């Protein structure tokens, strides 16, 4: 609906969307507020003074647990899962599109991967590693466990994409003499790129915050969610909220910088007359 004038429908839906975003940010509001708790304050109201103590504490050694190490493991794992998910689901999407012997079983297997309760995957992989005599590690067993979660998402999104993807574009390219690879790289890929970004984003977010699947597969070292949960077995402080607040602000900063970069590049291209 590329109408120039905003309709009533637009305002209603925009309001609805605004409420939805507000709802998503609801719990974050308490996180942001309480991250400024006074030095003796707790994780719940009442506020016990106001301070920046907990932001500072974020970079100090905690009584229990270690933010730095677990964060870097989670970040690394998230990136590994993101890259693998994008590549594997794209390939699978292409395969399913062409059709192959065993496509249906593989499809149902993928769906099953979604529906098996995460705690079981966790336990199963943990046990399988033990039986095989392998030492579970966040970069091996937990990596696999996360993939059983992110891949079905990726594959299903690819399905939705290719489901509505008209083959006319590729055929046109081929008629003009492009090879399969060229048709893929220059026609298909650019069209589905935004969806791939979505798959990657999904993959990273799901992995970064995955708890149950990591529980039994992380091996000797915790990822961030496990570390935080472990920390709740002792006195916890608003430093957890400070972590949440910082995470949110950093995410916004990253998004802002990315958008600004894109805008600048676009402007320069326009200036140079590249369309």
């Amino acid at each position, binding site marked *: *609906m*590329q109408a120039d004038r905003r309709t009533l429908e637009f305002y209603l*839906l925009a309001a*609805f*969307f605004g409420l*939805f*975003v507000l*709802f998503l*940010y609801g719990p*974050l*509001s*308490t*996180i942001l507020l309480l991250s400024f708790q006074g030095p003796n304050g707790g*994780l*719940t*109201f009442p506020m016990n003074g106001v301070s920046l103590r907990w932001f500072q504490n974020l970079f100090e050694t905690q009584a229990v647990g270690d933010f730095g190490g677990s964060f870097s493991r989670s970040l690394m794992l998230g990136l590994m899962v993101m890259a693998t998910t994008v590549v*594997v689901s794209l*390939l*699978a999407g*292409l*395969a*399913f599109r*062409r*059709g192959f012997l*065993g496509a249906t079983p593989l499809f149902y*297997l993928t*769906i*099953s991967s979604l*529906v*098996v*309760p995460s*705690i*079981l*995957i966790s*336990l*199963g992989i943990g046990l*399988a590693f033990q039986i095989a005599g392998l030492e579970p590690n966040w970069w091996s067993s937990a990596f*696999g466990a996360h*993939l*059983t979660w992110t*891949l079905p998402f990726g594959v*299903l*999104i690819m*399905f*939705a994409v290719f*489901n*509505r*993807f*008209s*083959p006319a574009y*590729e055929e046109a390219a081929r008629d003009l003499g492009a090879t*399969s690879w060229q048709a893929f790289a220059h026609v298909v890929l650019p069209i589905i790129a*935004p969806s791939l970004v*979505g798959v990657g*984003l999904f993959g990273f977010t799901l992995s970064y915050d995955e708890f149950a699947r990591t529980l039994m597969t992380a091996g000797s070292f915790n990822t961030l969610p496990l570390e935080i949960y472990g920390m*709740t077995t002792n006195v916890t402080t608003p430093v957890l909220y400070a972590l*949440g607040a910082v*995470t949110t602000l950093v995410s916004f900063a990253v*998004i802002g910088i990315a*958008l600004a970069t894109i805008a600048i590049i676009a402007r320069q291209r326009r200036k140079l007359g590249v369309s």
Partner: protein
Amino acid sequence: MSVAAEAAPAAVSDAPAPKRRRRAPPFAPYLQAMPLGLILGAFLLLPIAAIVIVSFWDYDSVQIYPAFVTLNYAETLGSWVTWSTLLNTLKFVAIVWAITLFVGFWVAYFLAFHVRTSKMQTLLFLVCTVPFLTSNIIRMISWVPFLGRNGLLNSALVEAGIVPAPLEFLLFSEFAVVLAMVHLYSLFMVTPIFNTLVRIDRSLIEAARDAGANGFQILWNVIIPLAKPGIAIGSIFVITLVLGDFITVRFMSGGQSASMGLMIANQISLLQYPAAAANAVALLVLVLIMMAAILRIVDIRKEL
């Protein structure tokens, strides 16, 4: 399944897909599908096989023994707890599914049809994802000061004179569970629906309008049928997430409500693997049946 079920055969379909393409080598799809198959084989099939085997084993308070007993299933299926837990779980599924579908569809609709540039769409999507980068454990804790007796919401309501005393049901209740689940899982509905909506050829809508269809007719006869694959995928996401959930149920009900996932988690935590495995197999069967039902109604692999 109101929306998906009643929309008969898709009103409009894309250009017919050619059966075979010419140049790509015939073994290419197998190579392309191999990574997925290998990963799922190693990290899904093997563990599941182990679980199915263990579900027939025997156990006591300290050990599990290789054996072949059906006692675990008899205990699981013969107990009213399983059935009432199942019912409770299905109740959560139904409520959360209905709410997320409604919310998800309209949010996706807004993003797809009313937000003009794809850059803006991406930006709004990112804004929606940001809250999820803060660990769920932290967010769960933060619901307490938000919804609790002395929480933000209750203080605001009492101060504004809307309610005379803090509302107790906001936290540690089934309401809280549903609220948190909707919070967690709405985006899983938005994304696939958005993906299908955005790919709808706008000329179809124009054509329908030119033919005299009103807004509702366009929505019902053109847009929703075309969004069916997205709705189906979103439903699969949400239903399976709710069915397997145990953390949200435990945290938000204050441990007072049960779900199949929570029951399994309890048994695992006490090393009663065979019982947990039997429960898991039962849950798995249930989930697969539900998925099969959805896929029968909407064949998301159609038109590939």
